[in-house]
């Protein structure tokens, strides 16, 4: 911990954003009430909360679907991205042959391939299609970051490994993978958010209620002009995204802090 990181400063860092949030919600509530804005245009926060409570069961079920797809896509993207990056690092030829296709997969908007994937997988298996689409979006940052990380191992350390006759496997496990770890974690942080975006966008495209994630709840509520419920679903989506981001940030800090500050405590 840094010296100027006092308890007061830390509390302030949490309290100030919360205070801003409360002020914002309060102003929203007051504006809606004073101007008598109709709930199907802009519902007051209290109305949104009521809707969230009233529809808690169905919204939670949908949240679970979206969460399931997101997490599965993220885990597969992590495994696939790191695995492919390791393969690339072992053979320039494989990298040369496959990397352009990874880029093609990345630059093609997921919305445009969603219908195709849905047809191939079948409308009775929409969740699997969502998983594929979310995976496509999520896996590239991990692949490119890890590839970069594996390559950026200190060249003097590489020479040292060569000098001591290290095997390819030793260079990979003892040097390249640890060097790539910060890059990998940065890629995972981006991919966590992208997996959620992929899952939601794909579900919008799938439409028709074949999948019942949060995106469908938003479409459904919009069709019925049930705007408070739409906001409630939106609120849950944002919360989920924030949780993913903080979870991955925490993971990153836990793993990387071993290299610096936290070790001071272990000294004692």
């Amino acid at each position, binding site marked *: 911990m840094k010296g100027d990181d006092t308890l007061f400063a830390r509390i302030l860092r949490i309290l100030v954003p919360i205070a801003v949030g409360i002020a914002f919600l309060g102003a929203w509530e007051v504006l809606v009430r004073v101007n008598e804005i109709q709930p199907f245009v802009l519902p007051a926060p209290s109305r949104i909360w009521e809707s969230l409570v009233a529809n808690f069961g169905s919204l939670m079920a949908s949240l679970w679907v979206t969460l399931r797809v997101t997490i599965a896509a993220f885990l597969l993207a992590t495994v696939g991205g790191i695995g492919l990056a390791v393969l690339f690092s072992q053979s320039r030829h494989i990298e040369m042959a496959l990397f352009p296709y990874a880029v093609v997969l990345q630059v093609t908007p997921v919305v445009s391939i969603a219908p195709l994937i849905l047809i191939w997988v079948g409308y009775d298996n929409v969740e699997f299609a969502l998983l594929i689409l979310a995976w496509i979006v999520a896996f590239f940052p991990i692949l490119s970051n890890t590839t970069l990380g594996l390559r950026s191992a200190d060249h*003097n350390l590489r*020479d*040292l490994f060569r000098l*001591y*006759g290290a095997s390819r496997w030793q260079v990979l496990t003892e*040097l390249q993978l*640890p060097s790539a*770890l910060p890059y990998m974690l940065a890629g995972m942080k981006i991919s966590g958010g992208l997996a959620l975006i992929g899952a939601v966008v794909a579900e919008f495209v799938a439409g028709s209620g074949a999948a019942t994630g949060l995106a469908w709840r938003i479409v459904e509520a919009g069709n019925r002009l049930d705007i408070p419920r739409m906001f409630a679903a939106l609120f849950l989506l944002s919360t989920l995204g924030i949780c993913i981001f903080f979870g991955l940030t925490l993971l990153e800090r836990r793993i990387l802090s071993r*290299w610096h500050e936290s*070790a001071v405590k272990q000294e004692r």
Partner: protein
Amino acid sequence: MTADSAPPAPPLISLRGIGKTYGSGTVALAGVDAHIRRGGFVSLVGPSGCGKSTLLRIVAGLITPDTGDLLWPAAGGARPADIGFVFQDPTLMPWARVVDNVWLPLKLRGIAKVDALPRIMNALERVGLVDFARAFPRELSGGMRMRVSIARALVTEPPLLLMDEPFAALDEFTREKLDDDLLDLWSSQRFTVVFVTHSIYESVYLSERVLVMGARPGRILSDIAIDAPYPRGRAFRESHSYVESCAAVGAALREGTAI
């Protein structure tokens, strides 16, 4: 003054007509001849671009020369299996504790940590860092990190230690301290040291012989013996012979760069 007073014993390292041209057409080295005795302390001094680092890496086997022969007369003809190498940066693994960084050369040979530990602690003791075995590199000062790097190079008890401007990035005070510590280690262990530096003073203070190198193409301009006895200390730094030797090395360097 070329040091032809070489002892009758065969040299450890024998360089004959070593040449290296890089792909870009830069002639890094052209016709380098040198012999380094076993247990000697030789410095390579020269301006940047004179190929001194390239020469060191050729000796280490990290770069293959285009022409010439690298022979090991005193080591049965082959490059010793253990060579210690110290870079300009400490080149430590930031994710590994000091003890694990020093373990690396032995670990890569399949020696388990328990079996390696006595040797690791011995190496750390020699550089005075036993108390920091559990620390991470980030927690150490620049000078301490360089000591870890030296401990790692010495953990295999190598007959040859190659150092590529190891103390160039350190402040003057730390540098002089590490110079003295290196000489102490060398006196007690008697390994051979080839030390690359661009500091005339450091080369004169440390070595028995200074090979002055010139650039474009990289070559050895002169071979200057520093006759002062070891151990050397403050007295030597302030002595007349030290000043004279520095002047001689400086003159040789200027001669080479003026051409």
